[in-house]
């Protein structure tokens, strides 16, 4: 029982960066843009989010407020990803370039920018970029009072995560409401399904595509910051994000383009990532255990392609650029 709770707890923590990465990409893909640059945007978000918290603490000194640090990290990570997505949007939406190649270019560019900034800060600050333990706590501890966390079972299962898990939940439900219940959400889905139809209905296609992609990119990038500030322990290391961004792209298919599904998918993947610590299987070495998330993704991909259902398919115009005067 206790082992199970611990497993779930760790799965949620490990899945949190993926929640953001995936939800951002869900929003992007709903507009018909397949942005393969999630890894790049998450790198940018990670490095710049860390930088924001670090330099804020450096300037504010001992009076640094944890809340402000968290907010700054969130905002800067978002802006970093939004900037990357903006480049992507300009090249693919306005200039109608190939989305796959542009996404890969963004991956290369973004990892470059992330590594560069991480490295640059490290050199500038004499070899070490880390925030103080006091501030770290705001990033890594639960925002709920101790009394709530102390409730048996429920306390750990529901109230013990860091603040980013709860923000992710809010975003997921807000996004689900937006997509399914609101007029703008209907329009966005129409743009992704059939831009020519949306266009003929008077919907401003470019506006929706830009907004969805840029906001989506920002949300994805927050995932990079969450990874650096929680899992990687608030320091920049050479391994960077270990392919989380690519996993997020795969998770979008796994969750069938549904934001709330992204949460469950991310938790499941989080579980797969740490299972080797919690659930030992004899004869299977840890290193092989670690490829489990990828193997599961492959199985899901195959399963999805085996049973096709109209409602579960990707947005119909995904990956295609739109020019009104094309017939």
């Amino acid at each position: 029982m206790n082992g199970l709770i611990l497993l779930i707890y760790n799965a949620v923590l490990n899945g949190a960066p993926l929640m953001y990465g995936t939800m951002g990409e869900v929003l992007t893909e709903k507009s018909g843009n397949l942005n393969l640059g999630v890894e790049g945007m998450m790198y940018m978000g990670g490095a710049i989010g860390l930088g924001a918290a670090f330099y804020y603490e450096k300037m504010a000194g001992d009076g640094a407020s944890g809340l402000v640090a968290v907010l700054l990290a969130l905002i800067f990570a978002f802006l970093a990803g939004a900037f990357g997505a903006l480049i992507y949007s300009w090249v693919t939406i306005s200039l109608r370039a190939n989305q796959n190649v542009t996404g890969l270019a963004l991956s290369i560019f973004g990892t470059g920018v992330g590594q560069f900034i991480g490295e640059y800060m490290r050199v500038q600050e004499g070899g070490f970029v880390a925030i103080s333990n006091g501030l770290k706590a705001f990033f890594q501890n639960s925002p709920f009072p101790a009394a709530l966390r102390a409730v048996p079972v429920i306390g750990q299962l529901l109230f013990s995560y860091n603040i980013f898990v709860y923000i992710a939940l809010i975003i997921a439900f807000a996004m689900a409401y937006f997509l399914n219940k609101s007029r703008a959400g209907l329009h966005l889905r129409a743009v992704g399904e059939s831009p020519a139809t949306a266009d003929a209905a008077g919907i401003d296609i470019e506006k929706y595509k830009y907004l969805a992609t840029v906001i989506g990119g920002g949300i994805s990038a927050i995932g990079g910051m969450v990874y650096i500030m929680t899992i990687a322990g608030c320091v920049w290391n050479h391994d960077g994000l270990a392919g989380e961004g690519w996993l997020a792209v795969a998770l979008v298919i796994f969750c069938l383009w549904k934001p709330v599904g992204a949460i469950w998918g991310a938790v499941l993947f989080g579980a797969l990532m740490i299972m080797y610590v919690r659930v030992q299987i004899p004869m299977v070495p840890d290193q092989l255990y670690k490829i489990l998330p990828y193997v599961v993704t492959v199985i899901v991909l195959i399963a999805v392609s085996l049973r096709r259902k109209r409602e579960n398919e990707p947005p119909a115009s995904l990956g295609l650029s739109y020019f009104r005067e094309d017939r």
Partner: protein
Amino acid sequence: MGASNSIEFKNITKRFGRKVANENISFSLNKGEILSLLGENGSGKTTLMNMLAGIYYPDEGEILINGEPVQIRSPKDAFRYNIGMVHQHFKLVDLFTAAENIALGEKGRLDRSRIAAKIREISSKYGFIIDPDKKVYEMSVSEKQTVEIVKVLYRGADVLILDEPTAVLTPQEIGHLFTVLRAMKADGKSIIIITHKLNEVMEISDEVAVLNHGSFIGKVRTSDTDPQKLTEMMVGHKVALEIRRPMPKDPKPRIVVNDLTVRNHEGVNKAHHISFTAYSGEILGIAGIAGSGQKELLEAIAGLQVITAGSIQYLPDGKKPMELVGKTPMQIRQAGVSLAFVPEDRLGMGLVGSMGMSGNMLLRTWRRGKGIFVDEKISRDLAEHIREELDVSTPDIMYPVRRLSGGNVQKVLVGREIASAPSVLMSAYAVRGLDINTSYTIYNLMTEQKEKGVAVLYVGEDLDVLLELCDRILVLCDGHVSGIVDARTSNKNEIGLLMTTIGGQQPSGSVPAGQKSGKEEQQDA
């Protein structure tokens, strides 16, 4: 201009690349009337209307509404001037319901019950039948068209543009559509119908505007004209619109299809228990509402579909019969069955758009090269031959066929198929999108093949042409053989009824006309 001129085009020019689609077009149309915009395929009708609907933006000239020059930069602008267009290729989101599609683009909160109420109001006013909660991908073609028209009315359009609205409908559905259009006209709406069908022009419109090769030819009151005059305006010269139809000579069974059931790529049965015989020296027409299994039937014979049951016997001259079911397209060809297939989707299925004529000839011969290399000489020679024979207008046989006009693309495709000296020639919508002259070239090619003793299967959508061109017509309804009629004695009404309801059961078809009389006769339409 008087107050009755609700819309006026002034010196409109629109180009696509080097092609001039509309050149210096000026005319006006009246409020509360039905105007037919008549012209051949490729004469620029749709392009002109797309500028009114905000899909295209004119390169030169201006549009006036109620005497005021206006800028229609997007479909949204068009809505502001109460202009709405029903496109030939429906602009609907398949995954959405009728109501979601209709309300798309509106502002404000998404109030589903209010939307449904407004849809019901419009429906009862003009006599539409529509289920607001039905998903578009579950709808028939005519239901989708209804959604499109309601959508335009819902947005408050006073000017409705309908692009080839009858192309996909049965004669009975066309009748209903015209009733609705008259009701809308009585309600004070202006309607523009884009069409190339003269009888419909005469039936429904008050005025006719004619375009030819992108230029405006003239505008006449329908009551002051007749089909012959309109044809001359449309084509630019007098044409004898007759299709030569010799009686079949010595018809022998060539393809015998028996109890054939075909499943498409999505795993749905699209043709059920089909049985018929195609004879040599005969054109067998295939009619039906779009998507009734025509495509699947032809593709099944060509070896491109999954066949769940039944048989397709091929009976060559002087050889023993052969079963085609279960063979791949390659095996069918290698076994000496000379099937030539002209698919409906020319660039998506019959040709490689990015390659030139030469590369496209290779599609039939690429295996013949020595060893691992392709033999480009065979294909170049064939390409040059077809270019001369059929007068294909291309700067070079290496010039990408995608950049050729529709008529030339079709000539390349038909030319290649005929060049393989087939004993069975199948074609699906061979004249779709072609102008009248090229269409007649294609009809003549079909008839020539028939005279050579080829069994021709011709899937068409224009019932008038089918009745003039074919010897017998097989009518499909929802994947079933609804009936097989003698084209010389049947009429549009009979075929129309067979298209919508499965009629008399005539499993293996009536005897072709040639066997009954044996005497050649030329028949006028």
